[in-house]
């Protein structure tokens, strides 16, 4: 693991993994969509709208996964000051924000036919909206500070402070009386969803997770290369200034 933390070794690993992971994503996504539309039966209460669950729930899981990843990487930035930790956090933010956006929009589109409204200010929905705003704040912070090291440390502090929102989102449906249903998959007494609906859900969750990892690896490679380009351009400017002098 320590040897992979070297950026050059990490780049060669990404180059080897990306083609295989792309194939895994295509296969899982194709299988998941087939199961979601052609195999999964309509729910006895929700009817066909249950098919929205196959994208809404994995997107919501990955919204939390993305922020947890950023919070762990923030510790790596602040404690060990490892540059790959900062790169991992910075590049996970836009991906996590996209999955949070998908969870919010698909949840809203599922809520209208089931609850009669697109939006209510209940604890689960509001805390996920706060998560989306935290993602946007982190992206803005990284964009606002030019020097990567300073930007990384400032964003790491914000990420750790915002990390308190993750357990709030997870347990909001237990702590408060919400319109959003309580957890129905990861429960101490097992899932309350029928296996005919659970299988497509898990396949889509695996597909989305593989897609998250794939995009994160590609984005990390791009960020490492961006820092190399920046350093080389500074060298180029310095050489030109020396030649003029």
């Amino acid at each position, binding site marked *: 693991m320590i040897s992979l933390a*070297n950026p050059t070794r990490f780049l060669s690993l990404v180059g080897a993994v990306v083609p295989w992971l792309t194939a895994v994503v295509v296969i899982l996504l194709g299988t998941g969509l087939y199961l979601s539309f052609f195999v999964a039966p309509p729910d006895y209460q929700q009817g066909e709208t249950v*098919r*929205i669950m196959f994208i*809404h729930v994995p997107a919501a899981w990955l919204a939390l996964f993305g922020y947890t990843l950023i919070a762990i990487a923030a510790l790596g930035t602040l404690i060990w000051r490892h540059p790959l930790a900062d790169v991992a956090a910075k590049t996970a933010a836009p991906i996590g924000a996209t999955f949070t956006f998908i969870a919010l929009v*698909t949840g809203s*589109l599922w809520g209208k036919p089931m609850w009669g409204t697109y939006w209510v200010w209940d604890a689960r929905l509001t805390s996920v909206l706060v998560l989306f705003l935290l993602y946007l704040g982190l992206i803005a912070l990284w964009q606002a500070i030019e020097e990567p090291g300073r930007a990384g440390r400032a964003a790491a502090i914000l990420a750790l402070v915002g990390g308190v929102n993750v357990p709030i989102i997870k347990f909001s449906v237990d702590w408060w009386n919400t319109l959003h249903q309580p957890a129905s998959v990861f429960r101490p007494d097992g899932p309350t969803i029928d296996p005919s609906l659970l299988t497509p859900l898990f396949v889509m969750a695996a597909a989305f997770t593989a897609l998250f990892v794939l995009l994160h690896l590609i984005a990390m490679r791009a960020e490492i*290369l961006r820092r*190399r380009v920046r350093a080389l351009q500074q060298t180029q400017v310095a050489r030109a200034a020396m030649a003029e002098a």
Partner: protein
Amino acid sequence: MLDLGPHASFILAAYGVTAVAIAGLVLVTVGDDLKQRNLLAALERQGIRRRSAAKSTAETPTTPGTERPSAKKPASKRKTTPRPRKRKTPS
């Protein structure tokens, strides 16, 4: 054609928004990766290379801009302050 019932528009809208958002994310991410690779290749064609790339591969390569702030310099490059010699005191 798949019959999605009376709420088909909500289901299709949810999948449509997801598809557009993911496609956008993929395009931006892959596009940025390609752009950075092309920029780096262009700089290297101009003869501007990283020190570690120019040196022999014997040393562990590092990425400019991503060095550990606390990383110690190799022993050969470390500045050593000479220890003050003990003065011989006349006996």
